[in-house]
């Protein structure tokens, strides 16, 4: 059997192809990652910006003993689920409709893509403005119907709802696109055969369409979860984590710790590392589903 060394030698050209990417990977991904893990075990902050030293698990125990921590975990998990499921569902529904007989597809697509194509820091600021208690459009709208205005950003639960809605708005175009692709790759003949066999409309969808795009749905859920978990913009720009810590998720907390005055990079790094642990398993699933097992036979 070929020894490890021999196998490495045989794969020389493969490594050559990925070498530049590999270098980038090492320096800009693996090294910062390792560095980050390292820092999380030190006490790097504004007081010890250069002369930091290892302090073992102190940061982690600090985090875990913080009563806020559980809230943040809860927030992050609920944040992820309440984003991913509607985003995938909306994207799927839109893709299904656009895949059927309907006129003006290109025009609709053009509009539906806008949330994704526009820079999110701008649109999120608009959303923030729309949620404004006094002047925001939403409350203006409610006033027309005599409903008492809602404190979209000041009330804990509404604030969470607000950022989720804004983030869903940002997310469904992408899902719509990947589902459109999957739907288009189903041969029309299968639908014809199903028609003749007696399946139409919803039954067709249930027995033919959905099962065939199941891999894509799972992909969307996985990738969406990984991305949403650490999605910074929506949670930060609209509410900056507030009120209190109602809309604080892992990443906003890490940011605040790192850049919010105390420059507490070590604790921020610890938070980041914990977030990574959470995502390790889904990430693994994603790799297997997306690429590793799908070797060209």
């Amino acid at each position, binding site marked *: 059997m070929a020894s490890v060394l021999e196998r490495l030698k045989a794969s020389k050209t493969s490594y050559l192809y990925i070498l530049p990417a590999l270098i980038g990977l090492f320096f800009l991904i693996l090294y910062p990652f390792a560095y980050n893990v390292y820092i999380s075990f030190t006490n790097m902050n504004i007081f010890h910006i250069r002369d930091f030293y290892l302090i073992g698990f102190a940061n982690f125990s600090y985090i875990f003993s913080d009563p806020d921590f559980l809230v943040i975990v809860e927030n992050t998990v609920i944040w992820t689920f309440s984003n991913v499921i509607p985003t995938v569902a909306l994207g799927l529904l839109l893709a299904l409709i656009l895949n059927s007989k309907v006129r003006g597809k290109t025009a609709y697509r053009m509009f539906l893509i806008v949330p994704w194509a526009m820079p999110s820091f701008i649109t999120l600021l608009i959303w923030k*403005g729309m949620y404004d208690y006094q002047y925001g*459009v939403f409350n203006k709208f409610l006033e027309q119907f005599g409903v008492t205005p809602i404190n979209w950003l000041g009330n804990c639960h509404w604030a969470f709802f607000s950022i989720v809605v804004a983030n869903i708005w940002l997310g469904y175009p992408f899902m719509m*696109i990947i589902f459109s692709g999957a739907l288009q790759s189903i041969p029309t003949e299968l639908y014809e055969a199903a028609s003749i066999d007696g399946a139409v409309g919803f039954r067709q969808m249930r027995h033919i369409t959905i099962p065939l795009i199941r*891999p894509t749905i799972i992909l969307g859920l996985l990738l969406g979860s990984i991305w949403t978990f*650490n999605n910074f913009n929506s949670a930060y720009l609209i509410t900056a984590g507030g009120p209190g810590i109602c809309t604080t998720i892992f*990443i906003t907390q*890490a940011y605040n710790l790192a850049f919010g005055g105390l420059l507490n990079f070590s604790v921020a*790094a610890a938070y*980041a590392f914990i977030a990574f642990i959470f995502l390790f398993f889904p990430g693994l699933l994603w790799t297997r589903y997306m690429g590793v097992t799908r070797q060209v036979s």
Partner: protein
Amino acid sequence: MTSISGSQWTLGKVVQSVLKHAFLIIMAVISIYPVLWVVSTAFTPGETLATGWHFVLDFLPFPNAPTIDHFTSVLHLQVTGGTFTDWLRNSLLITVSTVVASVALTLPAGYAFSRRIFPGRAGLMFSFLLPTMFPGVVTIIPQFLIFSTLGLVNTYLGCIIPYTVGSFSLSIFIMKGAFDSVPRDLDEAAMIDGASELRAFWQILVPLTLPSVATVSLWAFMGSWLDFALAHVMLQSNNLWTLPLALYSLITPTYTYYGTFSAMSLIMAVPVFVVFMIFQKYLVTGLTAGSVKG
């Protein structure tokens, strides 16, 4: 059996069609509504805005006395040494380089992951996924430290390299998927025809995966053109500023130049939209190549 379903069929279809269009229209309106505000603000005279940026009264954002002053002021904007032309030039240079680099690197990498087996393949693929699993905000510091050691702070490369590497997370998988979906028979046919592996790669495989190349380009473009966080850290001299940095400078602690801000946002968003519309027909094939079982 004669069937009366002929006419019922049509009625049901009409109802379905109406529902579909209604839903699509509602979603389309929701999709562009916030953007309409940006457009409106960009055309609203400064004096009106000075009374406070409030989304007052109108549900339909429409300026009463539209003006293009903000757009012209964007073009003449100057912030201690940098002008609009500087920022545009910088952004273009960096973004185009990123796109080129991204394609140049993910093509061979995607090919290697698709067509070859080598030790560590699985582990490496997983590693490319790390950036997404890791809050990006925090990696900026170590990246900065590395680049400052290399003396690349405050240079174009200081941005191009991270942007390129950052795009790998999705792009390498896209290219791998694209190559996966090209049957191996073609490789073999090309080699029998006398092409070396490299030529087979360039002349046969790459043309077949152009939709995915377009997707990778679009992805790199979007990640680079609109980025603020990294540019903010990496580019310090004012005449090296990219457009997003200039945009942010319009938000000062004391006052926000909403009109100019909106106008500039639109100017920055237009290329994204245009590039997007050009590439969008490739986008669908590009993102899903190889991921759906054939």
